[in-house]
């Protein structure tokens, strides 16, 4: 009796989960399937199955606009994301190492300051930042998007790495010091390799956030040859209009592929990163 009851609830729970799952991903599946439909069929075909299958949306959409193709937008996005990852990993791991494993004067107030800046809304600093970058002649280059990443501006990652580095046994440093290692060597040869999972997590989140970013990219990039995928898509909507949903959906689908691939390969790190941020933070 009891067993059939448990089996029954499990069945109902699966049923609800399947229904919710379908509702959740249906819009994405629909976008994907629409990207292979003829423009006139997108709104007439019922369901996901296309009455006529075409690759034209991808071929014509890829050509982009005003002579700038999506190949260029993708390259630009990969460049900005890649540089952001390098910058965040180097600078945040250095700051985390200092906060987690070294002692120096004013460490506590500086740490407090870092936590405080994590809470500060971006909008408070955005206008002076823009003015500074403009005066430096950096507007319309990638520098405003990349340089701050080399100065550990994303406190979240410092915090994540501190949590991780604190758990590495202190005895390891002492042994390394006895063997004649300096702090730089301990950081580079000992702590960084051991903190690899935290670094991977930071790299993944940096990639996803930079790839999805729209606001700062829109603010600083206004030449079409500098455009990232976000800006390309946005402009594509204005240029080709709502009459061309097929191409829009094709390019939108492609724009999600890198993030989705990262998710498939590094799911474990993503989940751990979110959990660590939530439970320990």
């Amino acid at each position: 009796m009891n067993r059939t009851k448990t089996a029954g609830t499990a069945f109902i729970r699966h049923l609800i989960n399947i229904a919710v799952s379908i509702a959740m991903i249906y819009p994405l599946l629909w976008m994907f399937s629409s990207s292979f439909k003829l423009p006139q069929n997108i709104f007439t075909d019922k369901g996901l199955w296309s009455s006529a299958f075409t690759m034209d949306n991808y071929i014509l959409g890829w050509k982009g606009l005003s002579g700038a193709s999506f190949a260029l937008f993708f390259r630009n996005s990969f460049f900005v994301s890649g540089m952001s990852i390098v910058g965040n990993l180097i600078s945040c791991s250095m700051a985390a190492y200092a906060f987690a494993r070294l002692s120096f004067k004013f460490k506590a107030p500086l740490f407090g300051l870092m936590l405080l800046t994590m809470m500060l809304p971006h909008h408070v600093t955005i206008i002076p930042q823009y003015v500074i970058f403009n005066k430096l002649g950096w507007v319309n280059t990638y520098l405003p998007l990349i340089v701050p990443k080399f100065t550990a501006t994303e406190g979240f990652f410092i915090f994540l790495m501190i949590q991780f580095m604190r758990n590495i046994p202190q005895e390891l440093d002492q042994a390394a010091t006895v063997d004649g290692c300096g702090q730089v060597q301990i950081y580079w040869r000992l702590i960084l390799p051991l903190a690899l999972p935290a670094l991977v997590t930071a790299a993944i989140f940096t990639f996803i956030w930079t790839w999805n970013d729209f606001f700062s990219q829109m603010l600083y990039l206004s030449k079409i040859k500098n455009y990232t995928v976000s800006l390309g898509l946005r402009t594509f909507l204005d240029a080709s209009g709502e009459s061309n949903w097929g191409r829009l959906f094709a390019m939108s689908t492609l724009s999600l592929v890198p993030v989705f691939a990262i998710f498939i390969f590094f799911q474990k790190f993503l989940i751990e990163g979110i959990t660590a941020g939530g439970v320990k933070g």
Partner: protein
Amino acid sequence: MRPTHFFKQNGTGYLFLAPWIIGILAFTLIPVFASLYISFSKYEMFGSPVWIGLDNYKEILTGDEQFAKSLGVTFKYVLLGVPLELAFALLIAMMLHKGIRGLRLYRAIYYVPSLFGGSVAISLLWRQLFGAQGLVNQFLAMFGIQGISWIATPETALYTIILLKVWQFGSPMIIFLAGLQQIPNDLYESASIDGAGRWAKFAKVTIPLLTPIIFFNMIMQIISAFQAFTPAYVISGGSGGPLNSTLFYTLYLYQKGFVSFQMGYASALAWILLIIIAAFTTLAFLTSKKWVHYEK
């Protein structure tokens, strides 16, 4: 203490901290003070800021209908979107928690929208889903219901964006799942012995032990919801329309600062946003003493 001595003692620490110190000075502290100064000035990008005292703030608080409108839109988004998203996240986490088969697959599916949610692609998709001929109306037509253009109607446009937020419940859900796993099983067992049913267990064990995590999720979501921008911008084509119904606070700030180049005015808006977020966070912390239970 002589400087050389100070450096010998603390040099390595500051060496590793150097990038961060440069960053916090150049990209945070100096801009924060500059922003405060600019907010008391008339500043249009070209030339230098001209001090006008409290005029920007006076104008915003007394004579600016767009400000009041954008604040209303944003409050509605935060006060409806955040609780709905968290409730959904908790509900699904509860359902997945009790060792359901295929947990990893469900968790992945529920998380995918959070992964894409902030992107332009999804905002474009949303624009279509809730358009006059969109998928939502196709669905309604199956039941004989004649839909409207949800994104072009002032009464409904904001709700489509709130729905987009709720759709991204995956990230707080994962945090809830981790929290649920940390609740010791014997607490449920002793509750069972005391004769507690499913609801009593939920209300007396699960919720109280989960309050620190509910609180954490709430704070994080409130802070980020106040700063939402991309969906409003893309769905309304940058206008915040129809009839300012999706004029999010950040969108209005952007229009003032970077479209009409009233940078002093926009800076004042930014400081008001900071004060509002700080007030909400403080309020949450103060009331939390009443409902958040930390294990002793």
